[in-house]
């Protein structure tokens, strides 16, 4: 897909493993964060979000962790499946603004 660049960080895992994808965000004042999944030829698909008053949020097979001290966000995917193979982006938002600022993305490759 169009989002796959030649120099994306890549995480390769085996099916059934847990995956951790990391993101360093840029603005210490950002207070809302989203993880998106982008499959080849598709648009960014919402996975999970978290507000800055939380450190952790869990969804179905996914957990997002937020460390505001070091401006770090992570996405944990439990029991990774081949269908999880995609590029994953974090995006940040500053309260009062509509702009989402996207990170560079990480490609997750899941081998059966």
């Amino acid at each position, binding site marked *: 897909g169009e989002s796959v660049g030649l120099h994306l960080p890549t995480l390769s895992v085996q099916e059934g493993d847990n995956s951790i994808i990391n993101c360093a965000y840029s603005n210490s004042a950002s207070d809302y964060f989203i993880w*998106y999944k982008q499959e080849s030829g598709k*648009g960014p698909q919402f996975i999970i979000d978290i507000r800055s008053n939380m450190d952790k949020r869990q969804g179905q097979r996914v957990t997002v962790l937020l460390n505001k001290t070091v401006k770090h966000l992570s996405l944990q995917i439990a029991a990774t499946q081949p269908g999880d193979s995609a590029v994953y982006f974090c995006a940040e938002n500053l309260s009062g603004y509509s702009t989402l600022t996207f990170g560079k*993305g990480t490609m997750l490759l899941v081998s059966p």
Partner: protein
Amino acid sequence: EPEVTQTPSHQVTQMGQEVILRCVPISNHLYFYWYRQILGQKVEFLVSFYNNEISEKSEIFDDQFSVERPDGSNFTLKIRSTKLEDSAMYFCASSEGWGSQPQHFGDGTRLSIL
């Protein structure tokens, strides 16, 4: 599940021509956005739109660009006098509310300027 739809999926245009990219946001959403992604680069914000007005725009969104909600369902991005560097994926998104709300994206229009 409701989704944002974009047409066409691929648009090829000669440099200097005008293009209109079309989007149908999710029906109960009130806030609409355009983003673009140049090949190999990050997704970049272009503009947000609410109540028939531009709410925010980035430096990229200069006089060459305009947006419109011509009817109750469509949201369009017009690019006048296209340049080679306008070649990119253009994504439309919509959200129920403003700011700290999930934005839901369409699958994009790939714009190729020759």
